[in-house]
């Protein structure tokens, strides 16, 4: 029982426990915080596997953006504390049945299946001696550049979609847009009028 094995067991135990608490939490905010704990432990597992860039990206993108987004939405919608009422008792039998069946299938796979790992063919020569981030970056830009472009496009489309969906349009008078033609059509004699007055006379 080496230290790394014990650490792995501890981290995965916390991961699975917080995963359980995500789906069983009474308050939505607790569930989001347990999800963040899951992501932390997932990042630690990634570091065990030598994938440091993925661990950092998990923290920055998943926890820093997606989980914070979840938290914003939960707090904005002001989800009331909902206990384990009749809704849960309605779905619990079927959900647990699905879980048990899934678990039994995977257990059967573990016990009766064999796993032979073939040796992966990768260009090990130009990836020698690089850190994980450098190696991933090299691979991304040389072997998979098209996927990078497509990922950027996906993010762009998602951003446009989210904005278009939630934009509240208050009608034509809402945005303070400048109508240049209307500005240029404005003439002095329409707007300004000179009135000649003597002193102590009121302007009507």
């Amino acid at each position, binding site marked *: 029982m080496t230290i790394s*094995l014990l650490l*792995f067991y501890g981290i*995965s135990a916390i*991961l*699975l426990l917080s*995963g359980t608490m*995500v*789906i069983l939490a009474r308050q*939505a905010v607790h*569930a*989001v915080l347990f*999800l963040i704990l*899951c992501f932390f432990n*997932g990042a630690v*597992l*990634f570091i*065990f*596997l*030598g*994938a440091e860039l*993925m661990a950092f*990206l998990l923290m920055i993108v*998943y926890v820093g*953006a*997606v989980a914070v*987004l*979840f938290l914003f*939405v939960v707090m*904005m*919608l002001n*989800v009331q504390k*909902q206990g384990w009422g009749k*809704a*849960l008792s*309605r*779905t619990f039998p079927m*959900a647990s049945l*699905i*879980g048990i069946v*899934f678990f039994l299938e*995977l257990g059967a796979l*573990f016990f009766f299946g064999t*796993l032979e*790992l*073939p*040796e*992966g*063919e*990768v260009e*090990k020569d130009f990836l020698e001696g690089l850190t994980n981030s450098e190696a*991933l970056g090299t*691979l*991304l830009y040389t072997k998979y550049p098209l996927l990078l472009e497509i*990922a950027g496009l*996906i*993010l762009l*489309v*998602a951003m446009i979609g*989210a904005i278009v*969906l939630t934009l509240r349009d208050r009608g034509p008078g809402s945005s303070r847009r400048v109508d240049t033609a209307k500005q240029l059509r404005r003439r002095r004699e329409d707007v300004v009028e000179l009135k000649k007055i003597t002193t102590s006379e009121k302007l009507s």
Partner: protein
Amino acid sequence: MIPLSHYLFVSSVLLILGVVGVFLNLRNIILIFMSIELILLAVNINLVAFSYFLKDLTGQIFTLFVLTVAAAEAAIGLAILILYFRNRGTITVEETS
């Protein structure tokens, strides 16, 4: 040295938790979203574990793209959730009565 089957076990139990969470939560759509994120995390752990044991970086490249698509999907899903809430005033998923 931690064998591959341990990582696969962790990842598969997390997947099961996520799937059960999708079916379990009628009261709150956000919990369904979070269960989907759990499923995606399980898949990521799986991919990175295989990438380590096969000594091939393709698994991590794929994980990068899964992360990207998950972020995009979370953004649009939450936008749809907000619209749903605007129209209905509540986020419980009621059964059709």
